[in-house]
């Protein structure tokens, strides 16, 4: 606990702080670019990209090992990973556009074959018997322990650059996500912007490899955006929330991993992000599960209550068990389903209310079409008093003349 507190306040030394900062920047940029990808409904493209880095990583490792005797130089590995990921991305695009296969098949095919190829190449490296091959497996699940200061600086700097790039391009991205055709009429080259978006996604994936590992880097581009979606309907706000969630996940993950030696950073970052996601899924006031289920239950009860009362007013038999239960609970019917005086009064009110609404709908069909609640709410809460008055008077003309 103490160790965690120290890590949380950046007081565990230069290297750890640097890694923490790098992971936060990475999380933020992955969250931002991931949001646009989510809006394009192509979230799992990043899964294909990340798995496709493996052959590039291994080839780069082999080449560097043959040339310099050590294949673990991070920038070289990142370039290799980037190139093969680009190939994978091209493959996914090509298969889903040019053939009849869906994007899901394209992603799955590219992901598994390129990863398979990478695995074959890893066995090649093992057969070559050069040093440092253990360093490669770190890219599978990520390893920040023992990361060099230079490596951490590189990751942080790249992540910062990406963050700035995504921030600058956010409007173009949004236009393309929202409506590619409209964007094209506005002079935005939709295809080029789309490609740029995917390239930035690729860059985030490659940078994140060392931190979370290639299987889990996908999570950084999917979970924070989905989390952001729970809190707002406005896209740019969602991007901002996703960035914050990503940064927070990076912060929590890295600091948690410093609590004990040997704890993997990648899974902790992902689980932190997932924790934030679960909180949002459950408790977001707008789309959270608790709020939605409660609202659905209330709504269902309301519908049954109104239908039951109308049936009482029209003296129709009620069969629906839930309707009967709701009426009974309000004291509108007795246990033997005979309406109580209270129930009859409520039924008269409901009938009256219903008549007012239906009069309103026939008199002002246009306005009625724009109302959401469709007459379940009391009419006096929804319409201005003078409208209600005029409806009332139209409904009971004889009463008025008597007065």
């Amino acid at each position, binding site marked *: 606990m103490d160790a965690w507190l120290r890590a949380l306040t950046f007081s565990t030394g230069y290297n750890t702080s640097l890694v923490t900062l790098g992971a936060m920047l990475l999380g933020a940029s992955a969250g931002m670019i991931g949001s646009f990808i989510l809006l394009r409904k192509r979230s799992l493209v990043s899964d294909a990209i990340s798995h496709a880095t493996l052959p590039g990583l291994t080839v780069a490792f082999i080449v560097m090992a043959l040339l310099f005797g050590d294949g673990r130089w991070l920038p070289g590995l990142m370039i290799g990973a980037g190139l093969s990921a680009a190939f994978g991305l091209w493959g996914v695009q090509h298969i889903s556009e040019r053939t009849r296969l*869906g994007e*899901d098949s394209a992603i799955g095919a590219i992901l598994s074959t390129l990863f*398979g*190829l990478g*695995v074959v190449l890893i*066995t090649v490296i093992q057969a070559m018997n050069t040093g440092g091959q253990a360093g490669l497996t770190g890219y599978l699940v990520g390893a920040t322990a023992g990361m060099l200061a230079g490596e951490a600086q590189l990751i942080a700097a790249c992540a910062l650059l990406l963050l700035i790039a995504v921030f600058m391009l956010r409007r173009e991205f949004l236009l393309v996500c929202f409506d590619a055709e409209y964007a094209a009429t506005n002079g935005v080259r939709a295809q080029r912007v789309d490609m740029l978006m995917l390239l930035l996604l690729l860059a985030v994936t490659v940078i994140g490899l060392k931190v979370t590992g290639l299987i889990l880097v996908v999570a950084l581009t999917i979970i924070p955006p989905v989390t952001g*979606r729970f809190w707002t309907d406005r896209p740019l706000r969602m991007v901002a929330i996703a960035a914050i969630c990503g940064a927070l996940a990076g912060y929590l993950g890295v600091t948690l991993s410093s609590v004990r030696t040997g704890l993997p950073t990648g899974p902790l970052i992902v689980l932190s992000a997932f924790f934030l996601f679960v909180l949002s*899924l459950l408790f977001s006031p707008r789309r959270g599960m608790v709020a939605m289920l409660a609202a659905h239950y209330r709504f269902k009860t309301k519908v049954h209550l109104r239908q039951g009362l109308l049936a009482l007013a029209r003296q129709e038999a009620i069969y629906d068990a839930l309707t009967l239960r709701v009426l009974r609970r309000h004291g509108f019917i007795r246990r033997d389903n005979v309406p109580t005086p209270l129930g009859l009064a409520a039924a008269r009110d409901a009938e009256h209310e219903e008549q007012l609404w239906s009069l309103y709908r026939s008199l002002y069909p246009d306005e009625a079409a724009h109302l959401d609640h469709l007459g379940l709410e009391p009419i006096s809460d929804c319409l201005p008093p003078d409208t209600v008055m005029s409806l009332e008077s139209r409904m009971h003309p004889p009463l008025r003349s008597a007065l």
Partner: protein
Amino acid sequence: MADFLMLSLVPLVVAVIISLTCALLGNFLVLRRQSLIGDAISHVALPGIVASFLITGTLAASAMMVGAGVAALVTVAMIELIKHLGRVESSAAMGVAFTAIFALGVLMLEWNDASGVHLDVEHALYGNLESLIWFEGQHWLSLFDRQALADLPPQLARVTWVGLLVLAFVIVVWRPLVVGSFDPAFAASIQARPILTDLLLVVMVAITAIAAFEAVGSIIVIAMFICPAAAARLMTNHLGHQIAWSQAFALISAVLGYVLAGYGPGWIGVDASLSAAGMIASIAGLILLLACVFGPHRCRESSQAVSDA
């Protein structure tokens, strides 16, 4: 020859059976645009196995299977929950669920330092096809020898049973499966229970993935769920023929991949062997690539039908 019997026969047969089984189910996954469910399920087998190891303390096959099965069910339930209650698009829901569970698996593994007991991420991904050695298989006659047969690696029997189960499933549920894949609303209206069929299909995928996972690792499973079926789709417009093609492609990938990985380096004078699982996946991808370029039905039939849809 004795070498082949002892070292290669069982892995080859296991690889072939798994490839055929995965490719058979894969046809429906590809047609239903659910290919990635196989991906998600095979990723969560590892966490399931780790959890079962931590709870039971053994690496017995039965405990591992149960653990992986529970993990698969939890993942599927989670995906559905996130999709419906959170109103998240399905591929994103899948991404959230399987990465989180996989992360949990890796964390549990490292936290308890269970890596000493032959459980690690690499093994889970690449599998270890080459370790299925049949020690008693020293002569062709061993194939008819009761005692020698009893010594066959248990994985062989397991994947055979799973293969038969999947075959039986596809035969029995064939019509509801096809109708539900083509037109779910119509299937529901004729009481073909598309939701139940859907669920059964996912359960079959999970069983296959788990049985295969233990024997050959998850990467080959994902490749075999998708590549042969996808390539087969580009060869024909007839569902029966598509399934036949997918089986042929799966067989070719398994045999060719295994042989290339085991003997390929020897042919160019290097004394080493490569990952068979990886090679099989690569060959499957290569076949798909060829189908994408040369497949007679690689494009959609008419642009008009597409614009309507």
